[in-house]
């Protein structure tokens, strides 16, 4: 075995080789950095583009409208508008025509369709609040219709642009925070839409989901971690839980459609059914998080409790579960955040109907925020673009709050043993 000459590290060939290896090292590192940067930049791009498009949705343009109620075709007597039925009486009057006439009188024939449903809603509320304005000829600030709103914010058709210029020259246009967007529900007129109905639907749906998935998930986790014997049943349960956690969400929608709607005949589009479907979907997540949290509670706690005479059930419910609770809650909140952003299964069970009033209960027809976003994204009217993005901002804020809460719980209450 003849040994060759020792490597000569000082030779230029070797230098070149080491340089090449170091260059490749730097390239690899740069590629890694680029990968992280691309992901982060994409996230930033997504958030900035949604933010810049959506912030306009929170702003509404209002125009001054001198309206002479005496000359208008409204037959409303302020004397009859005192009492609980006032809102209904006003709603049955033809405010739309009155507004249109007043706008034509003030700004010319182009302005006949300047105001939309939002103006009608605002005027209705103003009249109900103070019927006496019907006797005079006040100048009211009313939200403009979608076309003029879009024209005031971006580019639009010539007629609307002209109208905006007229309004600006007369100092009759101002922008304000769009309170309507947070207090109203879906509408066909983009200037009058709001997310309140969808938010209430989301709230009811999540309430049903959490009410079902949390207790069942925690109890199942307790059973599997503390009591289950090693046998075929337990294996089957574990396999199905792990498998359910990976089943596509749309399959749960199909299950909800086939079982809850067609077999059990529960009401369509209701938060009850949506909540049930999402509960089945989030339950495995909670079980897995719960088992991990229970696993981290050290055996010494159990031994100590058993040693002073507690029964197995008392050990679990008096000691193990309270100690594991922060971990379980963290997992639950993360599961709930996922359920909150879920759209596909809810489309399957019919929560995509047009619903113009906030739901009154868990069996009333409702929609949820992600589905509302999906529905608005399908609209052709340009006014819906910024409303969709604004609704996305609201949804992302909710996700942020929930995930922040989960991180807070994890950092402040979860114990490291």
């Amino acid at each position, binding site marked *: 075995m003849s040994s060759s000459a020792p490597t000569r590290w000082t030779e230029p060939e070797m230098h070149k080789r080491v340089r090449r290896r170091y260059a490749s*090292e730097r390239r*690899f*590192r740069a*590629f*890694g*950095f*680029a*990968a992280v940067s691309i*992901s*982060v930049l*994409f*996230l930033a791009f*997504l958030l900035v*583009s*949604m933010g810049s498009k959506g912030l306009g949705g929170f702003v509404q343009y209002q125009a001054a409208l001198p309206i002479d109620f005496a000359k208008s075709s409204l037959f409303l007597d302020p004397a009859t508008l005192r009492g609980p039925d006032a809102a209904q009486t006003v709603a049955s009057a033809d405010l739309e025509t009155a507004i249109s006439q007043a706008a034509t009188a003030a700004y010319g024939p182009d302005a006949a369709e300047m105001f939309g449903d939002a103006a009608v809603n605002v005027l209705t509320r103003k009249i109900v609040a103070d019927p006496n304005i019907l006797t005079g000829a006040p100048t009211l600030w009313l939200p403009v219709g979608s076309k003029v709103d879009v024209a005031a914010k971006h580019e639009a058709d010539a007629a609307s642009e002209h109208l905006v210029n007229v309004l600006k020259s007369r100092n009759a246009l101002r922008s304000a925070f769009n309170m309507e967007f947070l207090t109203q529900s879906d509408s066909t007129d983009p200037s009058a839409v709001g997310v309140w109905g969808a938010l209430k639907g989301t709230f009811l749906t999540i309430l049903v989901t959490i009410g079902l998935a949390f*207790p*069942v998930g925690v*109890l*199942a986790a307790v*059973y599997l971690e503390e*009591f289950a014997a090693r046998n075929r049943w337990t294996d089957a*349960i574990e396999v*199905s*839980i792990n498998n*359910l956690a*990976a*089943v*596509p*969400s*749309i*399959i749960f929608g*199909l*299950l909800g459609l*086939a*079982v809850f709607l067609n077999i059990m005949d529960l009401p369509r589009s209701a938060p009850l059914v949506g909540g049930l479907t999402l509960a*089945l979907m989030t*339950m*495995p997540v909670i079980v897995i998080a719960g088992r991990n949290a229970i696993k981290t509670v050290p055996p010494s706690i159990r031994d100590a409790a058993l040693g002073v005479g507690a*029964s197995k*059930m008392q050990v679990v419910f008096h000691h193990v579960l309270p100690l594991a609770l922060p971990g379980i809650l963290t997992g639950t909140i993360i599961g709930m955040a*996922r359920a*909150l*952003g*879920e*759209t*596909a299964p809810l*489309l399957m069970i019919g929560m*995509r109907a047009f619903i113009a009033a906030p739901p009154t209960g868990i069996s009333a027809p409702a929609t949820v925020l*992600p589905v509302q*976003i*999906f529905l608005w*994204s399908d609209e052709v009217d340009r006014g819906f*673009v910024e409303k*969709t*993005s604004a609704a996305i901002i609201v*949804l*992302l804020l909710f*996700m942020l709050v929930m*995930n922040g809460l989960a*991180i807070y719980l994890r950092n402040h209450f979860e114990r490291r043993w």
Partner: protein
Amino acid sequence: MSLGLALLAILIVAFGAGWLGFGRARRLRTVGRLHSLPSYHGAYVALWAAIPALLLLAAWAPMQSRLVDQAVLASPEGRALPTVEMQRDSILSEAREIASGERAQGFNPESSTLAPRIVKEQSRFALMGGAATLLVALVAAVLASRRTSAQFRARTGVERWFMVVLFAASLIAILTTLGILLSLMFESLRFFRLYPATSFIFGLEWSPQTAIRADQAGSSGAFGSIPLLWGTFFIGAIIAMVVAIPLGLMSAIYLTQYAHPRVRTWLKPILEILAGVPTVVYGYFAALTVAPMVRSLGIALGVTSASSESALAAGSVMGIMIIPFISSMADDSIAAVPQAMRDGSLAMGATKSETIRRVLLPAALPGVMGGILLAVSRAIGETMIVVMAAGLAANLTANPFASVTTVTVQIVQLLTGDQEFDSAKTLAAFALGLALFLITLLLNLIALHIVRRYQEQYE
């Protein structure tokens, strides 16, 4: 008496009985030593009063509406209804709505005369059910409270009930899995009775619009799933993975091997935000921002047929969504490689990147592969991005600028229109759902198998 009222009554009975049992046990304690605490005696009685009655109520509730329908149809008003089933059903459902106060009047005059009868029958059966459940609750409460005594092991009894509840909770997972399998298979079998299974599995044409008239063009009612499966595979397993695998893997490597710990604590949660963004947001972003960009890119590259619903737009956004998924999987499996192997390689003079490429990645490969398969399974089942950004036309094409459609898009399309439940179109959605379920299940099982079989067990 409505069923909600019955539920309330049961709970009141259970609470009252529990309170009485608690009081009795407390009085017993003044006489001598009890085996169980008084609260257990109370709980024992309350559980016996509540659980059987609640089970009965749960069984009764679905039966009641059927019984009401039967009774209404058997009544003189019901027999006067038209015999055509569809007409009768529409009148019935209208009458039901009038009876529940949802509407004041129906289109059919019969429904108004039927409504009072429905109200009457409903209250009759609800009274029957309510009375029966209440009776069960009372009898069980009396029987259970008679057992209260100093020697009685109430705690054991309560814990046995708890055990039953715990077991039942864990059974729900199995029931859900069974429910998914059975409902998908049942509806798919009905579909295959209308449409041959071989044409579904091997058919190359997908155009679900069934012709209403015989001479209608372009609506052949063909349900061949191959183009859909290809589209799903093309978007979810090829384009999305071309984006997600390098980015996800390199992000994980950079964050675990190169980045300063402080940078890592900031960047890792930021990456995880990508996984937390709702898919409908990605879908909107893909449709509104990415798709036009991809289309102009395609036209700039000379692809004249570049579609505004291209596979590339949907696939690349989906890939971005998958990045954190792959990166956390890779992170875990790289972290599982023992430090000694890394140290050995570095001690031999290898650079960091050589260590990663020649030592760490091969050792972590099974875990990484498993993670990638799980990511594919998730991408295939993803719905909203493709519904909003991918097309509806089922094309068999490998052109990323062309429009393809996926299984999930078609399920949504088939089920969100207005058609009756038994048509071939709606049933086809369940067959597609079954195919999707089986494919994702298979991918998950393979992933699990790879990890278990090939992952080296160090130490």
